[in-house]
């Protein structure tokens, strides 16, 4: 993983930890929807809105359904250029 992606991963981890109100250590690299009780349906929508605000991710039926893990989120943001 290149430096920019590692930086992006750290940024996204911080956002998710803050939104879900958990420690950064809990957001491990393969972290996914449903891994902890806080990342439930409502938590997921909070994560999506934070990604919209922080990284310009479009929130719609497709992205809500697809962006369900840390690696996928990082990949999506990386590809869309909203870093």
């Amino acid at each position, binding site marked *: 993983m290149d430096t920019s992606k590692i930086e992006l991963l750290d940024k996204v981890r911080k956002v998710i930890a803050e939104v879900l109100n958990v420690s950064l250590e809990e957001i491990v690299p393969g972290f996914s929807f*449903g891994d902890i009780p806080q990342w439930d*349906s409502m938590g*997921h929508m*909070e994560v999506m*809105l934070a990604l919209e605000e922080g990284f310009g991710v479009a*929130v*719609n*039926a497709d992205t*809500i*359904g697809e962006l369900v893990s840390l690696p996928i989120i990082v990949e999506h943001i990386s590809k869309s250029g909203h870093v």
Partner: protein
Amino acid sequence: MSNNTLEFSPSTPIPAHLVSQVQSKLAYVDESITAAHVAETGDQITLQLRAPLNKVAAASLNSKIQIVVEMMTKGSFQPKVEVLEDYRDTPVPYDRDPMDELVASGEVSEEETGVFTFGPLFSRLVDYFESRFLELAASFGAQPYRFPTLMSARMLDRVDYFRAFPHSLTFATHLRADLDVINKFAEQASYEDGGLNASSDSFSRVKAVLSPAVCYHLYFSLADRPLPAENMIVTGVGNCFRYESTNLTSLERLWNFTMREVIFIGSKDFVLEQRELAREFMRPIFEELGFAYHVESANDPFFIGEFRKQAAFQNAFQLKYEVRARLPFKDDTLAIGSYNYHQDFFGRNLNITLSDGSPIHTGCAAFGLERTVFAFLSQYGLDQNDWPEVVKEALS
């Protein structure tokens, strides 16, 4: 415009896909509202009121309306509508509202707003359609369960029901076990001014509500232990209660209705497969019954604060599909059933696990019996000569 009518322009235009959802929620904004209408264009709200309001009250109402509109529309997006079956063009012989005839013939009698008694023809149709839904249950070898009408408030709290659907709850209570309270009630209670005249401190704290759904009972009965089998398929019927305020009109929305459900519990793949099998099983039955209907993605009627996020989540993950029958008399459709997938929501919140320790996934096929009959009569009328042969024969 009469003095009992108020018109507002929402500060945020209401997108077309939210017009009916916002309109239904306006019934809960203020007790002065007797009816609410949102223009299809989304830029005009018209309220019918019990009595004219002074300027201060009207401004206060306007403020509440704007909050509702903003909470439901801000950040919303166009849902992805997926149509899985489309038989809307099925020709049907009737195009009037059957309600007048049902009332005139004594087949339907309204005991209280949204609470109806049904006569022999309507009841036989309920039994017949339920027997068709039971064919679905039998096809899965579903085990029969009986569920109570009351539902534990303590358990509903565990599944966050009070935040998602507070507006439609109906509470069960009783007099406090205190001789003075009971005697005073017996001496003084009467029905006046549209309600029971009794002191609110006569009543006990709420431990139960009238069931808003059927399948929850099954999940509650399985809470805090491993699922006793790899999977379960259960069927049950029950009275359901959803208070819908001024939306309680005709037989389209009842305060008290009956739902037959087939409930699936197991792994994600198991539940999703059964849900799809259920839909495929019902398709030829709805066709045989002559229904003009379609099946499309939908969302539950979440309350205002939770609506945007929950509805978006349901839509994105395709958790709910509704069977919507045409109502020719109003050029609209009515949900008569649904195919639902709850992911592992109940498994996580109620601590029910599979043998590998992961939370169970759940789903159900649910059919509203009174609504099914109402939709049928809206399409075929009360004259049995006009009914599809299979229904005619079954009731002869």
